[in-house]
């Protein structure tokens, strides 16, 4: 391909990405070094915002909550997703129906799904969750005002929203495992558990890794789900990093825009570190092609 052709084809996309993504990121970095509000030039304060962010206990607890949430959701989503994928893979005629039902929570907007999810727990909507719990104990759970019940509800909702993705990717992986290998293991006397642990899981480990990395990235930036599910997030210590950024940099006129921008910059740095293996892969692929 001629050089001129290459640039004509690629320029519109570069123009959009640089103009509407790279310049905003530059602005965010600039804000992180300033005492500033929207539309103002602001005053340069050096690393002052960084010091304030890193010493803010509220930021610390939001990091802890987000990381804990990410790890627990990731484990549940992978284990449950794998079990579901195996079961769905053994289905016959019912398969498209079951697959369709499971995929619904993936295609609807997160915030809408979380809204409907919250009504299962909301006393104003009849509190179905507490009715069910009431069959077993007398304890009345306060899902929105107590820290741990709220955490569990948020976690359940994110699992509900991310499970379809995990199941579908792992299902696609299972589809690629040759039946002969499984049959051979059966003849060699491997039990059900052994077949899964030593034959199937190792051959789809790429898929498991992919689900893990996407889940981590998605849960680390959870924001939408908390709007309906955690109205008392700040009080309960259930603020995620993204919600903390929003509360600092946009709520009530964005008085702490500099501080919020610091969180954005730090998040970008963490994401870059996590992307290193993918960046290396892309480099290798581009060189070999």
């Amino acid at each position, binding site marked *: *391909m*001629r050089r001129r052709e290459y640039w004509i*084809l690629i320029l*519109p*996309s570069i123009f*959009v*990405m640089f103009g*509407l*993504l790279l310049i905003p*990121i530059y*602005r*965010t970095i600039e804000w992180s070094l300033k005492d500033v509000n*929207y*539309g103002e030039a602001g005053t340069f304060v050096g690393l002052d915002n960084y010091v304030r962010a890193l010493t803010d206990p509220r930021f610390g607890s939001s990091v802890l909550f987000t990381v804990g949430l990410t790890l627990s959701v990731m484990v549940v989503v992978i284990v449950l997703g794998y079990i579901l994928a195996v*079961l*769905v*893979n053994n289905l*016959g005629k019912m*398969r498209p129906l079951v697959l*369709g039902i*499971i*995929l*619904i*929570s993936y*295609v*609807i*907007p997160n915030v*809408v799904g979380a*809204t*409907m999810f919250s*009504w299962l727990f909301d006393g*104003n*909507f*009849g*509190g*179905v969750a507490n*009715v069910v719990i009431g069959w077993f104990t007398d304890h009345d759970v306060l899902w929105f005002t107590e820290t741990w019940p709220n955490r569990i509800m948020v976690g359940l909702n994110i699992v*509900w929203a991310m*499970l*379809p993705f995990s199941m*579908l*990717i792992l*299902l*696609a992986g299972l*589809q690629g495992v040759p039946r002969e290998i499984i049959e051979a293991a059966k003849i060699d006397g491997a039990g059900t558990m052994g077949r899964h642990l030593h034959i199937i899981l190792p051959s789809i480990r790429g898929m498991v890794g*992919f*689900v893990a990395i996407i889940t981590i990235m998605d849960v680390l930036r959870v924001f939408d789900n908390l*709007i309906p599910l955690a109205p008392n997030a700040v009080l309960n210590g259930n603020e995620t990093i*993204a919600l903390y950024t*929003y509360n600092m940099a*946009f709520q009530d006129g964005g008085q702490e825009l500099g501080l*919020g921008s610091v*969180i954005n910059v730090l*998040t*970008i740095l963490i*994401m870059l570190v*996590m992307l290193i293996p993918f*960046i290396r892969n892309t480099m290798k692929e*581009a060189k070999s*092609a």
Partner: protein
Amino acid sequence: MTAAAEAIIKGPRQLREKRRRNARPKAQPMMSGLFLAIVCVAMLAPFIWTLLSVTKPTDVAFANPPVLAYEPTAQAFVDLWQTTNFYQYLINTGIVAVGSTIVALVIGLPAAYALARAPGYVSAILLILALVFRSLPRFAVVLPMYELSRQLGIHDTTFALGAALVAINQPFSIWLLRNFFVKLPEQIDEAAMIDGCSRFQALRRVIIPMMGPGILTAGVFMFLFAFQEYLTPLILTDTKAQTVPLFIATQLGQTLPMLQQAGAAAILLTGLVVLFAFIAQKYLVAGLSDGAGK
């Protein structure tokens, strides 16, 4: 590509046929069937409960413990249509989703083609940049966009929201489309150009028509992403250009009858999205499983 998706949706043929021959249920399939049934009910529970809540008459809709025997009514849907600007928000959402998908494809297709056909350092760097852009914290780009849109006087317009979504989804779309172009043999381009096409004519008349399923897949995802977006319209719109997800979320702080309308809106939106996903299921599954192939 879509053949693989079909296999994922319907399952391998032997399995479908084997079942018919020995239909006697065993204990283990019974257990797994029960487990799957419970999972399905749990996945559907929020929709079922919302549907029940919005079809109840307002005086029993919020009773605790819940009332299950009631005369169903569609009043919440009527109120939603008559007393709120729901249809306006629905139109906004549609315009933004369709518009940003088309523009993103028009911009992304040529770029993805060039990235697939001309590997080298420039392409590698661009693909890596796209990968980085794709995983950015959303606020890092949307908050500066907010400032910019106010300065340009386009805050709270579907145009600003659409433009933002084109940019935000561009990295994803060029990656996905590039992976489809890579699978198409380069000889096709060469044959077309030997027959007298220029590079651009070859792309427009020969290659893009052959990319049909790939373009549809990318389009389905960009449409869905734009439709689902909450954070971006939350920052970039106010009242005029509001979208449906945003409308539903802002109804939450309101009084109880308005909550029922929010529920009705949620049910309508779910219905629309599920219908769309049902029509586009092949492309959805193909795109998802292809993303994992890397």
